[in-house]
């Protein structure tokens, strides 16, 4: 129990509303595994990124005009005439990229260490719902400056809905609020782009609730057996998260102040023109692998379904992965395929960035096939045939024998 809880006034208040003991329980005395490595920093970093997006986003909302005729000009007004408007907009635009960077690393952490396995399936699902909500939010936010890429990305992606049988056409017109992407589309995207971050805040609350109910996993993937396996969250992980936040903000600041347009697309500095299609319509980098999967299937409906399934199958991961061992540190075969999957997804990113011509088509189709093969076929098979290395008796024994952090990726003896 933290010292401040001995204060009489604090206790008087806490008996009436136990918010202080609750905070103490979840942020101070909360027992965390003693062997978490730096891959466990990305959850708190995602939280920081979310706060940056909401704070900068609200300031931008105060100066932005959601109208097809004025949106582009209002963004330039923010960049030129609003005090520190350039800072807010560049922080928001780059903040979206950095939010995805830390969330993707958080997800890959989960894939590597088997964070989706019992008893954390619901925690994993909530995380995936957060990811999907983030994607919707980012997509709609990218439309708001009403540049050429904004407009044409909105056109390409909303058009996917029209591939659905029977309901497709009426559905897409309902989403547009007209017969093409136009002002009503922009205004509703603005309304939803403002709303969804707060939905994400709620989902993050559920995510943390599930986390604190099942407790954190750890690089060894074994459950804590007693107090010797855990340490208090504060000060051990508060300081570690603070250090991680400093590193994150440093990299973020370098992009924000010295290469603010590096991750963007020049075409989005051209105002939207419904009569002029850009030579290559590409999404922001964080959607490129999914865009590659979309284009790998030579059918509009098939591509859209494959893209939806690429995240959809992750919901089934707790059962597709048949191994009872959580951490890849003890899974010699799985570990190889994990890294092949990482490379595969990066290849998909390159495919998504290039026009669908020549070799890129074939590479995209092979990489897409491998993505689904990995999850639907290889993962169940590896679990059955792989012989995992022996697990340590407890976190404490592994740690005291000097091999416990598994930060080398090879936690076993």
């Amino acid at each position, binding site marked *: 129990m933290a010292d401040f809880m001995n204060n009489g006034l604090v206790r008087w208040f806490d008996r009436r509303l136990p918010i202080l003991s609750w905070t103490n329980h979840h942020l101070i005395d909360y027992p965390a595994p*003693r*062997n978490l490595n*730096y*891959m466990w920093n990305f959850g708190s970093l995602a939280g920081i990124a979310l706060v940056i997006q909401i704070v900068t986003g609200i300031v931008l909302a105060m100066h932005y005009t959601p109208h097809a005729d004025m949106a582009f*000009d209002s963004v*330039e007004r923010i*960049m*030129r005439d609003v005090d520190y408007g*350039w*800072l807010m907009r*560049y922080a928001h635009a780059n903040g979206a990229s950095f939010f995805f*960077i830390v969330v*993707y*690393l958080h997800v890959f952490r989960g894939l590597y260490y088997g964070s989706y396995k019992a008893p954390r399936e619901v925690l994993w699902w909530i995380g995936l719902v957060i990811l999907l909500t983030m994607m919707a939010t980012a997509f709609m936010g990218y439309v708001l400056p009403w540049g050429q890429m904004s407009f044409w990305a909105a056109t390409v992606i909303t058009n996917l809905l029209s591939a659905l049988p029977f309901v497709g056409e009426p559905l897409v017109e309902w989403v547009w609020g007209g017969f093409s992407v136009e002002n009503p589309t922009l205004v509703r995207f603005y309304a939803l782009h403002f709303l969804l971050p707060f939905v994400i805040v709620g989902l993050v609350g559920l995510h943390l609730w599930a986390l604190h109910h099942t407790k954190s996993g750890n690089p060894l993937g074994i459950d804590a057996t007693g107090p010797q396996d855990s*340490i208090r969250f504060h*000060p*051990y992980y508060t*300081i*570690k998260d*603070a*250090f991680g936040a*400093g*590193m994150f*903000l*440093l*990299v973020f*600041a*370098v*992009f*924000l*102040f*010295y290469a*603010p*347009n*590096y*991750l*963007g*697309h*020049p*075409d989005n*500095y*051209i105002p939207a023109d419904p009569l002029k299609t850009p*030579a*290559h319509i*590409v*999404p*922001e*980098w964080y959607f*490129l692998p999914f865009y590659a999967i979309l284009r790998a299937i030579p059918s509009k409906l098939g591509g859209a379904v494959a893209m939806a399934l690429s995240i959809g199958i992750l919901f089934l991961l707790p059962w597709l992965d048949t191994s009872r061992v959580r951490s890849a540190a003890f899974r010699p075969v799985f570990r190889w395929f994990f890294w092949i999957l990482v490379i595969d997804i*990066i290849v998909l*990113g*390159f495919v998504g*960035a*290039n*026009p669908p011509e020549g070799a890129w088509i074939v590479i995209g189709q092979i990489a897409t096939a491998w993505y689904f093969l990995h999850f639907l076929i290889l993962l169940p098979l590896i679990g059955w045939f792989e012989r995992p290395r022996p697990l340590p008796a407890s976190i404490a024994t592994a*740690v005291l024998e000097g091999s*416990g*952090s598994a*930060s080398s*990726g090879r936690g076993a003896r």
Partner: protein
Amino acid sequence: MKRILPVIGLLVFAVPAWAASPGVSPQQFSWSWEGIFGTYDREQVQRGLEVFTTQCHSCHSLKYIRFRDLVAIGLSEDEAEALAAGYEVPGDLDEWGDETTKPAELQHTFPGPYRNDTEARALNNGALPPDLSLMVKARVDGANYIASLLMDPDYNQSEPDDNGLYHNPYFAGGSIAMAPPLYEGLLVDAEGNDMAVDELARDITAFLAWAAEPKLEDRKRMGMKVVLFLLVLTGLYYVLKRKIWANVEH
């Protein structure tokens, strides 16, 4: 930590979001505003302003730049005011409800050369001269692209083809509607010598780079403070982290 950084690096640098640029890759120049301490060369940007007002502005608008913004590139307020006064902007309605014009003032943006896009196309062989305020940011490798396009020697000596287009290898598709705008002697330098096309092209590019990103110097100055602050803060966090964890096997 050592294992995370390469992963971040890979994710960040592996996938530039744009596809290959159409047209020939531009020549690479060195610009005063590049690098972490880069600033605009005020004299160069002012010469570029002169290129803009004497030549580009007869066809291109610059709708996001206000006359007062020119103080940032070294004009005095009086000079900016005098430049503004040479342009006309819409005034109030007169007592009969008729539209009037008045001389532009500091708060006005550069008036466009045409009343509307339709007039612009009608007077330019069907092509619409784009607004130049954001041109440097709206093209891949924008500054090098604009300078390369404007100083290409073959383009500058070419005659229009049957469609009234000029060959320019840097322009997407290879044919541009704009007649070569720069020529030796368009302007004279401080010593009274004719300026070469290459100099004019570099100067107008510098002006347009400033027009596209007028807050660049503020941004880099603030970046230096923020990065130094974060380095110290993160260093302290690291030391503290080492100290707190010193007695914990992990």
